[in-house]
């Protein structure tokens, strides 16, 4: 056996505080629900400002075209129109956005409106501001743009061809990033394996979680102070700020993001910074706040789609006993027309190189291209689910081709409970887990033996097929931004963190604010639970500020809500701030009660002497002493407490090795194991899900009800993507699904009842034992594809698409007798 990489990552285990318990771990109903149920929430389109105008973007009907001229005169002449902004003006007034990619990909120039050329259908060429939504939309129609159409390229692999139509002249080709990830010794494994399974092509499709609330913002470039006030539903405002500031040439302290309620985001709402930049310029030019709410069609065309990835020349060395030694593959990721957050997707998948398995030898030749399609943006399961889908497809194809039972093959190759902390071939450290147990629980929940029996009994001639599929997946969370250096060693990014601020208010009330921008994950509730435990009170009495406001919330550059990390970073910060506040409260109480701090305890909003509850001081008394009665304190004490405590949680990371492409890229690895039982109608390809179960492991659970809700949501979106939801372009680059008519978002009738099971393997690396979760790793795509394959006969082609419409399933079932199967086994 060749050499296995030398361990190079150490992660310190965390000493757990012992104070979580009374409230943490309970399914307490959410604090945020009341305002939503009464119709009193504040979403961005609910925001209104005096003198505000409504913005509407003028979008390209072409996938690729030179802009010959833009004439806004007819629009400006319309009664009720305040003004317009075009790409030419933007070019004068702002700088192109900074690029994450190194040159030549990093030479790409993108402004907040198209300059010179449009590169996808929906690319914004101008924006109009008017008195009402209706007038703004009418006026946008009156903007006359002359285009000279250019040939479009819509295939991400063909885009890499040197002769393909070129999107960005300054890049010189459509390849914006390329790198080879090479771990272990794949050549050795391919030479020494008993079998090599070769799969021609697997394609992971474009789709989006399409949050029900579209992107929106109200932007006011305050003329008096020069401050740009942005009330928006952007979910990663500090990243947006880092991008917008240099583009507009304003310091970050003049950019003030705010949000309250956000109607779902799923990663997609990271991508609204170009529009926000354009609104800022529009607001400055016209001296008015500019309000923009996407129409659904705008959203479908231009808000961002999930990454589309094609895997080719897949080679899998396997031993006779079923041990999967490695994977060799070429991957092409299609980023669409511009790089929004990309090419980070070209490294983020490597958080989960071996998936859930002890695969040691991996070589991925990774290319990212641009094409004439909507830019991609992180979408729930970002970049990892594409890779995990590849690995899960491989496991099932190996099982089918070599005659292994898919359950036994998984258990044989799984990382075992005793292997944790487990170091992957690229030096990531999986913190904890029990995958065999999770699989047994999920199989038990659907009564797997009974379904196997049904499947057998059904036999041929019934016109129906039953398929059973498993998807084991990882939800890696709390990422190390140092992985950006694997893309571009010049980037000054590493680590991660989140901030929180706890204070005792004037009458002793506890208040907490966070740097996060939740979109339904219940942060107000879970943060109140951990703080309540630390301060000995009820979560009802912990006020957590709703929403994020840069003027008074605390934050770090990583702040926001994305990438499955709140339970670690957000709660880590909240717990740290509460611990600091607790220490100050104890200090003041010890002075007031003339007791030793070690003899004091907190409970019911009071500090009392252990064993003598009569000797107590309520929080209101503490607040009084510090805020309005401080002459009674000793000068040392008065000078050393503020009852205003900020904490930044910093996860234990090192800078990855960008040359070897190794390092600990994420702190936690939640897992989800899905089992899907479906029935296919042979005549129509119609699919019905008969049973569905998920076993989830996200370490210590703070609020089980909220965790289950996240599991349900991720599952439904994944099933939707697997069966109903897809963005496809025709050869001219026209999007074929631009409303909820064509883009069939999964409904209550399509979605199955989802059974949930739980494994809890606490993370040794986090402050509370919890692991971030919520993205779900695209598990239903894995499970549904496996179930479809399982329903097909042995001569059927490999299920090579992540999206399987009924028509595609029909074709798979009714395949030509000698149709190419897309797979080959070479046995020594």
């Amino acid at each position, binding site marked *: 056996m060749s050499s296995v990489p030398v361990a190079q990552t150490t992660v310190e285990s965390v000493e757990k505080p012992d104070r979580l318990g009374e409230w943490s771990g309970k399914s307490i109903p959410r604090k945020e629900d009341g*305002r*939503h*149920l009464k119709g009193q929430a504040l979403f961005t389109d609910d925001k209104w400002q005096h003198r505000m105008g409504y913005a509407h973007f003028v979008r390209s009907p072409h996938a690729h075209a030179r802009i010959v001229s833009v004439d806004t005169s007819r629009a400006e002449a319309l*009664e*009720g129109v305040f003004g317009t902004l075009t790409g030419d003006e933007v070019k004068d007034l702002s700088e192109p956005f900074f690029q994450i990619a190194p040159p030549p990909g990093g030479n790409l120039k993108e402004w907040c409106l198209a300059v010179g050329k449009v590169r996808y259908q929906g690319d914004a060429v101008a924006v109009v501001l008017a008195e009402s939504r209706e*007038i703004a939309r009418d006026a946008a129609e009156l903007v006359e743009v002359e285009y000279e159409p250019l040939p479009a390229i819509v295939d991400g692999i063909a885009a890499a061809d040197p002769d393909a139509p070129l999107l960005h002249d300054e890049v010189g080709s459509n390849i914006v990033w390329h790198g080879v990830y090479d771990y272990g010794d794949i050549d050795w494994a391919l030479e020494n394996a008993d079998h090599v399974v070769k799969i021609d092509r697997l394609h992971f499709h474009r789709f989006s979680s399409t949050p029900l609330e579209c992107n929106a913002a109200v932007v006011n470039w305050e003329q008096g102070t020069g401050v740009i006030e942005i009330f928006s539903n952007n979910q990663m405002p500090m990243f947006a700020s880092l991008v917008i500031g240099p583009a507009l040439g304003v310091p970050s302290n003049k950019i003030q993001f705010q949000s309250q309620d956000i*109607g779902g985001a799923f990663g997609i709402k990271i991508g609204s910074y170009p529009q926000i930049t354009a609104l800022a310029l529009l607001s400055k030019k016209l001296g008015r706040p500019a309000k923009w709410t996407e129409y659904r*069609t705008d959203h479908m065309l231009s808000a961002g789609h999930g990454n589309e990835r094609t895997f080719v020349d897949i080679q899998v060395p396997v031993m006779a006993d079923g041990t999967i030694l490695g994977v060799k593959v070429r991957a092409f990721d299609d980023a669409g027309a511009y790089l929004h957050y990309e090419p980070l997707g070209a490294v983020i998948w490597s958080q989960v190189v071996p998936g859930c398995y002890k695969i040691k030898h991996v070589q991925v030749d990774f290319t990212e291209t641009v094409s004439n399609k909507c830019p991609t943006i992180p979408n729930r399961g970002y970049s990892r689910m594409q890779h995990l889908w590849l690995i899960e497809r491989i496991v099932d194809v190996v099982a089918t081709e070599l005659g292994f039972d898919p359950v036994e093959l998984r258990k044989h190759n799984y990382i075992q409970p005793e292997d944790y902390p487990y170091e992957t071939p690229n030096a990531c450290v999986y913190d904890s887990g029990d995958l065999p147990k999770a699989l047994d629980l999920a199989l038990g929940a659907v009564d797997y033996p009974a379904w196997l029996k049904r499947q057998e009994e059904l036999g041929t001639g019934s016109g129906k097929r039953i398929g059973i599929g498993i998807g084991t997946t990882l939800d890696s969370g709390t990422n190390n931004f140092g992985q950006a250096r694997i893309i571009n060693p010049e980037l000054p990014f590493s680590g991660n963190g989140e901030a929180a601020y706890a204070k005792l208010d004037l009458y002793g009330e506890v208040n907490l604010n966070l740097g996060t921008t939740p979109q339904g994950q219940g942060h107000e509730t879970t943060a109140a639970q951990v703080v309540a435990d630390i301060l000995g009170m009820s979560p009802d009495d912990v006020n957590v500020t709703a929403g994020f406001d840069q003027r008074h919330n605390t934050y770090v550059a990583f702040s926001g809500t994305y990438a499955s990390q709140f339970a670690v970073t957000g709660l880590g910060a909240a717990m740290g701030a509460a611990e600091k506040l607790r220490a100050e409260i104890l200090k003041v109480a010890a002075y007031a009660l003339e007791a030793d701090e070690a003899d004091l305890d907190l409970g019911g909003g009071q500090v009392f002497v252990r064993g003598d509850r009569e000797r107590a001081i309520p929080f209101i008394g503490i607040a009084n002493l510090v805020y309005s009665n401080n002459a009674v304190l000793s000068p040392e004490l008065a000078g050393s407490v503020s009852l205003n405590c900020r904490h930044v949680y910093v996860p234990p990371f090192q800078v990855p090795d960008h040359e070897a492409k190794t390092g600990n890229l994420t702190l936690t690895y939640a897992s989800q194991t899905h089992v899907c039982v479906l029935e296919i109608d042979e005549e129509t390809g119609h699919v019905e899900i008969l049973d569905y179960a998920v076993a989830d492991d996200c370490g210590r659970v703070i609020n089980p009800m909220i965790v289950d809700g996240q599991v349900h949501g991720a599952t439904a979106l994944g099933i939707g993507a697997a069966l109903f939801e897809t963005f496809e372009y025709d050869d001219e680059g026209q999007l074929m699904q631009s409303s909820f008519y064509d883009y069939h978002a999964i409904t209550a*009738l399509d979605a199955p009842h*989802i059974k949930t099971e739980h494994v809890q393997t606490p993370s040794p690396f986090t402050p509370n034992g919890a692991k971030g979760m919520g993205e779900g790793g695209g598990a239903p795509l894995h499970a549904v594809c496996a179930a479809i394959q399982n329903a097909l006969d042995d001569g059927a082609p490999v299920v090579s698409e992540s999206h399987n419409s009924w028509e595609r399933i029909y074709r798979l079932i009714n395949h030509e007798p000698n149709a190419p199967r897309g797979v080959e086994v070479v046995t020594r």
Partner: protein
Amino acid sequence: MSDERDPVVSDEGTAHAIEVTINGETHKRTVLARQLLVHFLRDTLGLQGTHVGCDTGSCGACSVIVDGQLIKSCMMLAPQVDGASIETVEGLAQDGELNVLQRSFNENHGLQCGYCTPGMLMAATDLLRRNPNPSEDEIRHGIRGNICRCTGYVNIVKSIKAAAEAGAGAAEEASR
């Protein structure tokens, strides 16, 4: 949140005087012929609990009840509701207290981001009036026109079922 907004003065087209009762309160307004009911509720009256999630009548975020009928308010024009009586999410709670259905959504985690919630509540209210004891299947049919991107519908179905069991349906039927 009933801050009324500056009227739009520059739009062309006919203006209609309408009188409409919303959650028991009568409003007289002049509206433009092309204003959608949902924008009349949200932008003109400041009743912002009713949401917009699409522009094609597909998502149900804008669901309200007009004269006893569940409708999508993005598919209706404001002048069409002249003389009508409308129920919106703002009218569900009584004296600030959540009703049985709302409480059930809270207890069963029937909402995450909350954006679909007002529409879901109106669809469920309508369903329970017609069918006080719906099966899971009937509930799923009842909300098939309402898209939720967060919950996978599991806990919405559970919330409506629990509300029916707690008597929400019977109360709704009686209130007709």
